[in-house]
């Protein structure tokens, strides 16, 4: 699995962090997403798919 994030689209919702806290975080100042792990282990795949699905800015794309 490879994750790509369009940082410009991100609106700082943090929904991705709620879904996959080991893979995403947010910057302190503006809330923009921080990708902690662009190539996460298999036990994270479901969380990452959930994060991409709920991101309200459609900023996360998952390639499998």
């Amino acid at each position: 699995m490879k994750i790509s994030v369009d940082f410009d689209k991100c609106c700082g919702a943090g929904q991705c962090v709620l879904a996959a806290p080991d893979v995403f975080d947010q910057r302190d100042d503006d809330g923009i997403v921080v990708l902690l792990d662009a190539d996460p282990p298999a036990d994270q795949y479901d969380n990452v798919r959930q994060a991409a699905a709920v991101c309200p800015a459609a900023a996360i794309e998952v390639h499998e």
Partner: protein
Amino acid sequence: MTAAAPSRIAVVGASAAGLSVAEGLRRDGYTGRVTLIGDEPHLPYDRPPLSKQLLSGAWDTDRLRLRSAEALEALDLELRLGAAAVALDTGAREVALADGSRVGYDALVVATGVAARRLPGTEGIAGVHVLRTLEDAVGLREQLRPGLRLVIVGAGFVGAEAAAVARELGAEVTMVTDAAVPLADALGPDLGAMLSQVHAEHGVRIMPGVLVDAILAAGGRATGVRLADGRTVEADAVLVGIGAHPNTGWLAASGVPVGNGVECDATLYAGSGVWAAGDVASWLHPRTGRRLRIEHRANAAEQGLAVARNILAGPEHATPFDPVPYVWSDQYDLKIQIYGQLRGCDQVRIVEGSLAERRLTALYGRDGRVRGTVGINMARATRRYRPLVAEQAAWPIAADPDPALSDGPALSDGPAPSDGPAPSGVALSGVALSGRNA
């Protein structure tokens, strides 16, 4: 009575909620047919940028695509775009489309969203705009130029965001609203007053507390607006942002329960094999037992996934939809985040930052419970208070959130509020929130 597993699922409405249903079905392993029907000719696109990056010209329309071509391809959908659903026969389990064709289904999802409310008598008058679709946004963008006199009717999300963009592009903006402050509904008077000030500093003239009565026109073109108190305001263009109504007309003869939206039970099921998701869905909130309909982007995605899960589980095993609502808004350099349900809250307390800094987190309470939290330019910090909203923690709350709450897992299925005693909280500098003037 367990119905056979569906093998044909039709989704009407090919936008955020409809696409989310389709994705959810595939993610949950459904391999049957999925027909996604949408009346717009475009591949699914996202609306929030319509009043932000698209309106300002920062993005072109390609950036609005909700999913890449490959991602859509992988979903293996039968896409029926540019095809409006005009009727539903729940007996025969068929949707009739405007081109005369019919689509059969075992389960149907209504995800037809809402349409912008218009002022009566404005159809066909040039220079009157609403902002709901790509065409609406492109049409308004073409008009925005330095010196254009733009009157915005309504100071809700559309009005406030469009005002910010129009000012950045040099238009002269007058905002008329029956409320006292922008986003009064969503934020209440204190944060709303701060927002008023920000708009005023950016040169927006706000006329609060008065309804717009009619659009004035000459030669088929808008020349201004008339207010309920008789005053008039001249304009070269008018943007009407006075709310929206659910797209349910096509269900009129179907027997599907329709009120303010498609009326579902707590699991988003409306009976007879019909489900609903997104802006159009009114459901019985499992904790309050009251009907709720939410017009926000994250809700569309979450309800879409919930409906997919519940369709595959079947109505008997479907689970209630119990979210922590979330919405954001960008205006000038303000990034506003809202969790929970602020409407009706009569207590507000700023727990971090301040109005003066225009950087803050506020908690909102009602009936002795935390109901929501708002962040202004404090996205990450504000998210730490979300669990208090999910739990509906007792109000007044302790001064700081439990550090262990930070970055915890999603609590959308969190426990019902306990009746335990309130934590020994600090005294509230409780600013009373007057109810909206509705």
